[in-house]
């Protein structure tokens, strides 16, 4: 029963090691603007060489948290520690932290090359070194032909790359990236993501990245913090966030999910999930210490199977009958919306309470004998351990 949650990118988990000391420590931080609380008593440890992502809806306080680390906001309460030292008295220009601004903040009167060289010049590096580093950065973000242009002569995506290059140029101990890739097209974004991961590993930097793109957070981060209204909902590696969300909010926020509300029960020694909408309880496998009572289950769409023939009953297999309501063909996968049939549903008001399950099925073969079509009667099944039981 030594199952783990999905693949592991690299063997790196200082947060599990009680003897490891964090590089950055937010200690019971609260930040208020007037009587509005932007950050509400959060604590967070980030370790050296970690790639840490902040994920959360707009206005939840991601930028504010970063600005406190960069030194542009002072916490109303709590302390920020860097390398074990309280940095609240250190002015921004003396912190070994560089930030890429969400608004880019490029110097409009300087060329792209001068923007990138700005930080290096402050350190008084020899001109030759600066030039070499600028060129390296330009090639990293693929902007060599634009070195002499001014920011207002660039496209939005190009400007974003200049901002990224400028913040990377000094190779700071800690790099804060506020939405670094949002304006790039998918291909360039993916390339840059891998460049960033590469660079981070090669140079041993610590990255704190804000993104609205969950896939991006999943790709690059060692750990993800899901924020909501100025506090953390969950801080865990991507696979844990995805496969073992600790709340309904996180499950819903990250990726697609089928959520069913009901109650956890114990029947004949086995745990089951029952819901007013369902006539039969579903088998579930929550951790043993989960108490009975009101709960909700979350099942990822790709964990569901859809078949035209009734599968054999088996232990630990959840099965529901339904009709295909809608099909979205995405190329690599197809998404089936299956409306549960009357047999399995006790719902009185059918239109609203009948749950519709989303199942993502990989299109593994090019040709299918009998494709599933609209209005087909189908069986939706999943393994009991694929459903995560969450407190309601």
């Amino acid at each position, binding site marked *: 029963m030594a199952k783990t949650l999905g693949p592991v990118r690299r063997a790196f988990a200082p947060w599990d090691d009680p003897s490891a000391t964090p590089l950055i420590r937010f200690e019971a931080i609260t930040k208020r603007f007037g009587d509005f609380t932007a950050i509400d008593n959060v604590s967070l440890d980030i370790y050296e060489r970690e790639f840490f992502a902040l994920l959360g809806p707009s206005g939840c306080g991601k930028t504010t948290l970063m600005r406190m680390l*960069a*030194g*542009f906001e002072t916490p109303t309460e709590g302390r920020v520690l860097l390398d074990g030292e309280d940095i609240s008295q250190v*002015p*921004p*220009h*003396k912190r070994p*932290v*560089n*930030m890429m*601004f969400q*608004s880019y*903040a*490029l*110097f*409009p*009167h300087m060329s792209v090359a001068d923007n990138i060289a*700005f*930080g290096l010049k*402050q*350190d008084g590096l020899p001109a030759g070194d600066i030039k070499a580093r600028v060129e390296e950065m330009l090639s990293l973000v693929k902007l060599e032909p634009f070195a002499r242009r001014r920011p207002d002569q660039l496209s939005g995506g190009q400007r974003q790359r200049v901002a990224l290059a*400028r913040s990377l140029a*000094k190779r700071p101990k800690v790099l804060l990236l506020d939405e670094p890739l949002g304006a790039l097209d998918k291909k360039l974004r993916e390339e840059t993501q891998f460049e960033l991961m590469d660079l981070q590993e090669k140079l041993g930097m610590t990255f704190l990245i804000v993104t609205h793109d969950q896939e991006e957070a999943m790709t690059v981060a060692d750990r993800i913090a899901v924020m909501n209204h100025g506090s953390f909902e969950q801080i865990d590696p991507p696979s844990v966030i995805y496969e073992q969300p600790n709340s309904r909010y996180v499950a819903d926020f990250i990726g697609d999910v089928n959520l069913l509300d009901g109650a956890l029960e114990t029947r004949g020694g086995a745990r089951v999930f029952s819901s007013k909408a369902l006539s039969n309880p579903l088998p579930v496998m929550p951790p043993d210490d989960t108490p009975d009572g009101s709960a909700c289950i979350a099942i990822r769409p790709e964990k569901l199977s859809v078949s035209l023939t009734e599968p054999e009953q088996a232990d630990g297999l959840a099965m529901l009958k339904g009709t295909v309501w809608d099909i979205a063909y995405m190329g690599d996968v197809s998404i089936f919306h299956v409306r549960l049939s009357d047999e399995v549903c006790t719902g009185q008001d059918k239109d609203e309470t009948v749950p519709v399950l989303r199942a993502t099925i990989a299109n593994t073969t090019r040709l299918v004998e009998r494709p599933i079509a609209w209005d087909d009667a189908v069986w939706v099944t999943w393994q009991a351990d694929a459903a995560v039981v969450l407190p309601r």
Partner: protein
Amino acid sequence: MSAGGSSAWGRRLVIAVPYIWLLVFFLAPFVLVLRISLSEVAIAMPPYVPVFDLGAGWDRFVADLGRLSFANYEWLAGDPLYINSYLSSLRIAFVSTVLTLLIGFPIAYGMASAPRGLRPILMMLVILPFWTSFLIRVYAWIGILKPEGLLTLFGQTIGILSGDEQFRILNTTTAVYIGIVYSYLPFMVLPLYAALERLDGSLLEAAQDLGCPPLKAFWVITVPLALPGIIAGCFLVFIPAVGEFVIPDLLGGSDTLMIGRTLWNEFFNNRDWPVSSAVAVLLLLVLIIPIVAFQQAQQRQQEAAR
């Protein structure tokens, strides 16, 4: 291209209006002044012998061209009074401009960093003096600066002056500086404020984030980005200050040479219209250099903004 006759005419009319304005109110008077400056002085009304009699026909006009007299200009070049007046005017205008910039920059900076709601009020306060006549405000300075004036009173009250000591500022070049700086300050503050207000605060944060101390960030970020405002403000102060007449006349001493004042004396005291016209023409020529420079700076800025 068939924009329609009426709209084409409308456009021509719109373009013509400022040209007609310039023609009637700038070029025509200038030609008159130029003509007087080439004439000879006479005891008459008006007190000069006109060189060109425009009513006398083309042949006469051509003949007159040959008899043009540059005597007035030679006279100006020969008399150090005029050259000194020009130089002194330029110097006073330059120093005043620098002083205005030094005082105006912190004011504009303070306004631009004030809370958003307060800015229109501060702007109002800067413009407020324009609601009173310029002349009255300069007279008010006499009341402040004169030996028995408010400043002396103030000095005596706070104890930097003993009982019978007085400030002797009125009728000195210092008083002229005070007057010019005071009068032209809004012309410096407003363009500076416009430039500084547009400045994105996150640029300074970015500079600091990259290791630049705040004071250096001011020099490498704020000042270059405010440069268009600085240039505009300096020209707006310098150009009128060179020809300033009222302030040196009311506040300056007899030793404060300024070309505007010399011109006035020539015109009204000596009643030498031709010479004073020549002074005016030369003043314009002297100012054309900064005016053209100003316009080019403005144009460059507009092109950069596009």
